[in-house]
């Protein structure tokens, strides 16, 4: 085994135009059923005409380091995969929804198949040796970046350098791993 990886996502909101290409790409990559999504875009407008700001944020599971969905899962279906991602073992899931209640980011849903489902950071692609998820790959604006925080490839550092970084709901104490560059 090689060293332990720690995948995270760095999302450059300056680049994002909120087009939702990430949502569509995820849906077809991961066979997400109609009426559901694993990622989504939030647009926040603040101010009054004509002094306005607008932020687009592509959101998904934060793959928290201290994930309440994992600690609240009674069957260990939700688990840490050892590469910094949080995964769901569909064979173990009872559909009890404790993980959904536990998630401060409302990132999960019950799949029509009866199990909890959410963004997996495209772990099937990671396992196949790819360095992108469907969303980071499709993104025409270069907003989304899958990074390995334990890597020494310098990718994360280059993206973060000189930028203000924001994380969502850190008070929830889950150590989320989506980093928004503002």
């Amino acid at each position: 085994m090689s060293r332990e990886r720690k995948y995270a996502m760095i999302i450059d909101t300056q680049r994002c135009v909120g087009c939702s290409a990430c949502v569509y790409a995820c849906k077809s990559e991961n066979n997400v059923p109609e009426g559901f999504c694993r990622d989504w875009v939030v647009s926040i407008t603040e101010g009054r005409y004509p002094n306005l700001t607008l932020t687009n944020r592509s959101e998904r599971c934060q793959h928290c380091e201290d994930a309440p969905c994992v600690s609240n899962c009674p069957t260990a279906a939700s688990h840490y995969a050892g590469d910094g991602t949080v995964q769901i073992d569909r064979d173990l899931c009872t559909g009890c929804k404790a993980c959904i209640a536990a998630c401060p980011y409302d990132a999960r849903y019950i799949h029509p198949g009866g199990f909890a489902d959410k963004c997996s950071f495209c772990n099937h692609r990671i396992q196949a040796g790819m360095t992108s998820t469907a969303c980071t790959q499709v993104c025409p604006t270069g907003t989304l970046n899958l990074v390995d925080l334990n890597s020494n490839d310098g990718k994360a550092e280059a993206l973060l350098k000189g930028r203000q970084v924001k994380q969502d709901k850190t008070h929830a104490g889950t150590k989320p791993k989506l980093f928004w560059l503002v």
Partner: protein
Amino acid sequence: MTEIVSNKLNPDVLPHLAIWNWEVPVYLFLGGLAAGLLVISSMSLILRQRSNSKPTVKRAALLAPIALSAGMFFLFLDLAFKLHVWRFYTAFVWTSPMSWGSWMLVVFYPFSILQAAILYKEELRAKFGGLAFLDQAETQLSKIAVVNAHIGVGVGVYTGILLATFYARPLWSNAVLGLLFLLSGLSAAAALMLWMAPQTEKRIYSRLDMYLLSLEGFALTVFVIGGLTGDANRAQAMWSFLTGHYAPWFWSITIVGGLLLPLVLETMETLGKSKFSFFVPLLVLIGSLSLRFILVFAGQSMPTFS
């Protein structure tokens, strides 16, 4: 002005969580009731001589596993993947109250059923004969009752702790919830026993329920204060709970109808100023059930604010 537009699709997640329907509050109520019945019947067996011949205690001991089974059935109904229900028993996740709860059942059933069987020894023997081991077990009844009392408290607290560990839902995320649900379960059990008790015993249960309701009222007050004095998230959630969409139901059914009114009536009953009526325990039971419904629904509707 802030305009927020999200294109998240997932039903039962937006605009706010609605993942748990009526099944879960009913389960929490029945679980609490079962726990209460087990605790009160066990305590009677421990504290009072010849309780094992009292019909109310016997019925309560018998009803405890039955109520729990009914509750479990509703919990089962709530599972999205019912065929995987056995998966609760292929893991023990110590951080998950739900896992604790499932394993507690493993102890609840044998001990509570054994206790009920001992109390109904003669009836069972008349029907099935034999059952000599029950005679032997009966000699250990008070010890079994001590175990059962603990199991009952555990299950009663569990129904509240289950919700309280969800930090993401600020209304639930309140440690008093375990105590509150335990007391609410106990008072519901006392009310049910009051209902079932023969006239001669009614005063005992009426007084017991009166005390339990007072304690529940106290716990509820602490729950509210704990919320209001919590961090911004919790305070906001508690404030919207007390004044928002669910407030009319909470104040009228849970507080006035389910707590204050029966408390007054039971006080009068205990003092001999009014006759015992099925109406009073019914109010308590409805109040206890409504507390679960309102807290489960309101708690889901309040997300973690950023």
